[in-house]
């Protein structure tokens, strides 16, 4: 899943794992991702906000799984054989994000990241760090911390 290239912290080059949400290509800095797995069968949590899909048992730890498209204001994620859970390790807590399909890992120089347009597919731009113009399409780089502290309204 991850590449074997060592990321040097001194260069401004970062690797970004990319996924599809419907047909939107989004990416997360690979250093923030612990793993990507297929634990899509979640246990629903009563009274939780709709963005919380449920919890999974990840080797004995409870991991909250968020419906990433829903957090971003898109249609809720529909589970298919290609659906994956991206486990983010942040703030001493692990959280899973449901995505529709995994794609590549791309190397991006920091100056390639352009500020995100005010309105990206109708999604508030505070969830994005910026956009990268790839050869064929546009990659939206997600701000994981913003997503994890999403506003349930």
């Amino acid at each position, binding site marked *: 899943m991850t590449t074997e290239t060592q990321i040097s912290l001194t260069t401004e080059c970062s690797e970004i794992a990319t996924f599809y949400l419907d047909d939107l290509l989004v990416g997360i800095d690979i250093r923030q991702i612990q793993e990507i797995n297929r634990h899509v069968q979640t*246990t629903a*949590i009563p009274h*939780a906000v709709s963005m919380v899909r449920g919890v999974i*048992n990840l080797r004995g730890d409870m991991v909250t799984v968020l419906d990433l498209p829903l957090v971003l204001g898109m249609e809720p994620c529909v589970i298919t054989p290609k659906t994956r859970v991206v486990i983010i390790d942040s703030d001493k807590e692990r959280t899973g994000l449901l995505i529709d399909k995994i794609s590549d890992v791309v190397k991006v120089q920091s100056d390639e990241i352009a500020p995100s347009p005010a309105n990206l597919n109708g999604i508030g731009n505070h969830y994005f760090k910026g956009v990268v113009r790839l050869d064929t399409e546009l990659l939206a780089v997600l701000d994981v911390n913003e997503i994890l502290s999403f506003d349930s309204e």
Partner: protein
Amino acid sequence: MDSNNTLDCDEFFPDFIMESLEALSEVEEALLEIEENGANINLDLVNKVFRAVHSVKGAAGFLNLVTIGELSHSAENVLSLIRTGELVPTGQIVNELLQACDTLTSLVEDAKNSNGADVLAHVTALTTISENRGRSSVGQTASENQNSESTVDAVAPHSTVSSEKLNDCRRNGNEIYLLGFDLLDLVEYTTNPMYLIRRIEDVGEILEGRLDLENLPILGEAQPEQLLLGITVSTILDAEILQRFLQLPSENVIHIPEGSDLQTNEQADQLQSDLQNGPEKHSVDHGLEEKVSEGSEPLSKQTTTSKSKAAPKEANIRVSVSVIDRLMNLAGELVLGRNQLLQAIAHRDMTALELVGGEVDQITRGLQEMIMKTRMQQIGSVVNKFTRVVRDLSNTLNKQCRLVIEGSEVELDKTIIEAIGDPLTHLIRNAVDHGIESMEDRQKKGKDVVGTIVLNTYHQDGKVCVSIKDDGAGIDPERLKKKAIEKGFLTEQQANDLSKQEAVRLIAEPGLSTAEEVSAVSGRGVGMDVVFTNFEKLGGSVEIESEINEGTTITVQLPLTLAIIPSLIVSSGDVSFAIPQTNISELVRIRSKDTHNRIEHIKNAEVLRLRGALLPLVRLNKVLGIDEPVESDGSSDAESDQDLHANSAFNIVVVETGQLRYGLIVNTLNDSEEIVVKPLGRHMQNCTCLAGATVLGDGRVAMILDVSGIAEYEKLRPVQDKSGLENSECGSELKENISTLIFSNHPKEYFGIPMSDVVRIERIRAEQIDRVANRQVLQYRGGTLPLVALESTISAQPKVETAELFVIVLNIEDQQIGFLAPKIIDIREIASDLDSVTFQEKGIRGSTIIEGMTVRLIDSNGLIQKYYSDRFEGQTKLTSKTESASAVL
């Protein structure tokens, strides 16, 4: 704060904190023992304390923790005097030392921010003690007075400040003070006199500084006893604040009033000598004041400590090397086991697999036990501290109390040990403050003047019990009831209905306090309910027993560990939930045909009638918003109660949380399982109904229900029973609720017998009844039990002959007798008021209506008398008594 200097030593801080805290906790115990010994100084103990304080000081110096160093230094000074025998450790001195240790402990706990903390009060107090050695032991308080007098005197009369300057200052609203310092003191506690100067300049303007030149030491000469510095200050503060701010004794702050100047200040002299006439008294008052103010904030203090505990803090634990070694071994075994397991799986070798499976099972169990062992700690680490609490408190309250600690070696899980400290302290405080009476009262009552509090820890039924027993005044249930009525918690009727036990438990009701006045220690009425809920949060339970004038025993039951809790797995819809066993009081299953009798509606809320009491009901799937399972045959309209589970039984889990009991309707009851609690993530913090999650045996995730959270969510309150027990107006001498066994003789006639009379209920076959001499008897436990059929004694319809029937065995005046009852219905609490008019007959106490049944309450005594007198007319009761007694034999 010069934290910059300390930053590079960051890695040493955790070790320093841990070791220092350990040392300091020893100090406390040793100090208390030293105090007890008084003049018989046990050098070993003193040395132990000295060494501990010294090592804290040394380490603090190394880490550049100035404040900690300073405080430990002055404590060390006092200790070294005790060590050399120059100072006798009186209560006051030990007090100071203990307080200094407390401060030191809190400084050490937050070592990084300790620099700059205000410890002057302690330092001054300790320095005074070490200064005053010799004197306090010889008892020359007079010389002390003279000494302090000279502090100001020596520097006062030679001022050069012009009166214009003084008046100028006064016009600006400032006051002029003359401050006296002993430089030798200063050198003792602040290495830098500039510190003092700056501190003064913070609050005012220094007009003049003078040194007592006559006393200046000449090199090589012995040090003088004092080196005086007088400072004239102009400030806006008043004398008291200034004196507190600078930690000066009051006699060393002299106000120079308007119109006088420094040269001829008779008033100041006067003032000064006034102050010195009673310096002893002053300092004592001051001490008391401080104590009271300290005592008055235990609650706020507790909340702050618990807050700081809640903040993530890396905790350390000490584990013996042998345990670590065995853990290491087990881990090695586990790795081997895994290798074999993988191999066996690869080879599809079933026999090998079984073998390895068993092995891994054993290793895992060993590992679990070992790891649990590392978490177990002796409860002594908590309870031994209470000796000090009791000592301090009884001193403040002027009582004499002794704390006996038993079973301090009992081990409990670390998390529990940490969590019970505060609530237990509260209980101990209560025992000293409310429980133990004042010395005079105890004398009047003829008790030992010294009150005893026994703190006992022991194992019982796989749980740990901590009981706190005092021999004090006890809790007066009547007073509690009165208070509860006053504050509107209960109506008079409700209060009267309470049993003694229930009344005593009122003490846990928030807002109720029996203390006539709020004291510094307790009495605000916020305490006990917090204590109770705290213990309940830990999965524990609290029981109170109290006898007026004999004392109170509070027993707390705690689980051994929190990490693994036995739970009942239930499901609602197809989702599984775990309910901790500690919350469950019973399981009730109601067949669908009984639902209308048992489940009633009060303002849209469902309630269950259980043994006469009404329990609010909560449907789990409704609370949690889970769809009704498909089995409930389509009629998912939950509002229309007619259709509800028309063909299925109700499973009701009766749960208890604090004072509230309610029933939780679930779809299915599954196994009970030992579960490991896992916290839920931050996105689910608003789910108050859930206490966490767990992984079940089959790998599925189940939510753990928070029983009190659900009650809160549903805003449940205890149901007041109004509809069921329609008490007639007729008065009765009975006051309390009677627990009553209800049975029927004829299917339409119901009778009740007070449970207190009932010994046993036996199920027999009709042919077992022997008819001898026109009497029915039963061979019962090797004797003969006379049987009474109701219809033959009182006016009742004859019972229906059935193959099986019940015998209610009663014990009246030491003789046993059996009532025949074809059908036992229930045990209910019957209200005290009975209708004693409608059915007037010997053997019947009265009647009441329960759920539409007219129930006649049997007067067992009267009935038996009647039974015998009917049979043997003219014979006295005495003979009947002997007769049946022999029958029993």
